[in-house]
């Protein structure tokens, strides 16, 4: 028990329609670490992310944040499952960035950022607005704060989405293929923001097809296949000539 992982899963499992999509996943990440998750389509990468970020319930196993189990409340020494409202509170500690951005289309950029702090934390608007401005400057979009998502490019939308997650001060950030929906020329601006975030010490789990990002920014690379983690290595070893066979086979496919 005496490890100091930021977030950790033990025997995490998920079944869809009788099909075991995640098979006993043990995944752990230290504070400030960046892990890239690679793997073929349908291997369960997104599923693991949705489970770890509490967006979806697991069918087995546990998730620990700072060594404390998520989704469980201990009252008078007895454990019970968290209610939806308690789960919502736990989710504020976990940020999620989607492949398809999922900005709120009926709100402008500023309102997209303000909703979380004002509705969830009941922060005064002024205070939240100040934090939003700091974050929008950081992702280079302060000049666009009155625009609606439909008026932004994909790269800009994804940067807003990252700021919207960051304004909740999450302790871990999950990225599910954050650049896969972008035109190639817009990928860089999003990766730059993510690199900046990694440099600032954020704990990050990044599902990606960008082997360049995995190689240069991540501390560890994890390979998924058919609902299991089949390999974990430092980028240097992962992308080296004498990597294990499954890694080589996978990399041959994507490169």
């Amino acid at each position, binding site marked *: 028990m005496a490890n100091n992982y930021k977030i950790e899963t033990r025997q995490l499992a998920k079944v869809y329609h009788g099909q075991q999509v995640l098979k006993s996943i043990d995944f752990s990440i230290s504070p400030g670490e960046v892990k890239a998750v690679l793997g073929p389509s349908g291997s369960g990468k997104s599923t693991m992310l*949705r489970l770890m*970020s*509490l*967006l979806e319930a697991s069918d087995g196993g546990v998730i620990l944040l700072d060594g404390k189990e998520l989704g469980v409340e201990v009252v008078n020494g007895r454990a019970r499952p968290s209610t*939806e*409202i308690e789960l*919502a*509170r736990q*989710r*504020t500690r*976990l*940020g*999620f960035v*989607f492949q*398809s951005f*999922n*900005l*709120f*289309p*009926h709100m*402008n950029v500023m309102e997209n950022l303000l*909703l*979380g702090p004002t*509705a*969830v934390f009941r922060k005064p608007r002024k205070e939240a607005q100040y934090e939003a401005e700091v974050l929008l400057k950081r992702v280079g979009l302060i000049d666009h704060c*009155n*625009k*609606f998502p*439909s*008026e932004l490019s994909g790269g800009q939308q994804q940067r807003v*989405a990252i700021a*919207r*997650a960051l304004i*909740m001060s999450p302790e871990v950030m999950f990225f599910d293929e954050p650049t896969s929906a972008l035109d190639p020329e817009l990928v860089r601006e999003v990766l730059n923001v993510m690199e900046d975030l990694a440099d600032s010490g954020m704990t990050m789990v990044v599902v990606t097809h960008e082997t360049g990002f995995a190689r240069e920014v991540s501390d560890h690379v994890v390979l998924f296949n058919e609902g299991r983690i089949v390999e974990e290595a430092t980028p240097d070893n992962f992308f080296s000539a004498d990597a294990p066979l499954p890694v080589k086979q996978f990399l041959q496919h994507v490169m």
Partner: protein
Amino acid sequence: MAFDSAVFWDALFSRSYLNGAFVALSLATLVQFFAIVIGFFLALGRESQKTVLRYFTSAYVWVFRAIPALLILILVWNVLPQLVPTLRSSWFTPYMGALVGLTLLEAALMTEIIRSSLRSVDKGQKLAGKAIGLTPRQIYWHVLIPQMIRVAIPPTGNQYINMIKMTSLASVISLQELLYVAQQNVSRTFSYMEYYSAAAVYYLVIVSVLMVIQARLEKKYMWTSRVAPGNFDVRNIKTWGINNG
């Protein structure tokens, strides 16, 4: 038979016509309001995980979509008081009867509109709300309902306008709405043209005003920072289209 414009103008500005128009407009507005509220909860029931709720709400929608409005009104007015004795008192006026009957019907239709509007909101929206820590109720209030409204405005506007016209059916339970007033005048004087066209003018005016309000609302829900007339975003066309569904 010549058109007697004096009779027409008298009718148009008569107290009974104004009254009838007010009855039609207020009744339709109340019906639409209650139907939206009830329809919202029925729509949630239709999408519920609980089988009992799903069956109950589907049965409701099925029954009230099948029965003609006229028959519902007659049943509510003539049969319901026999089953529910408290309705045999003076407060159960034709207006109340029409309000109950038309709301029962309209709620079923609104259920389907609201349900498909809720479904049209991208699945990722709920996830995004969850991810920033909103509770299920906050997700509905801040994320899903505003987006649902945009999709629901055109079909709901149609329903409302239809409801204005449907209130005329309540003349069978002797509600003194526009058509009823016109009919009474006609049966007294046999001046069909004058009295009925005066009634038609009222419907035209009411419906035109509602159409303007609907257009304004639709514009308000365009979600762009600069909304210029004619600056129509092609990306919106898909959701607009379900109007005809």
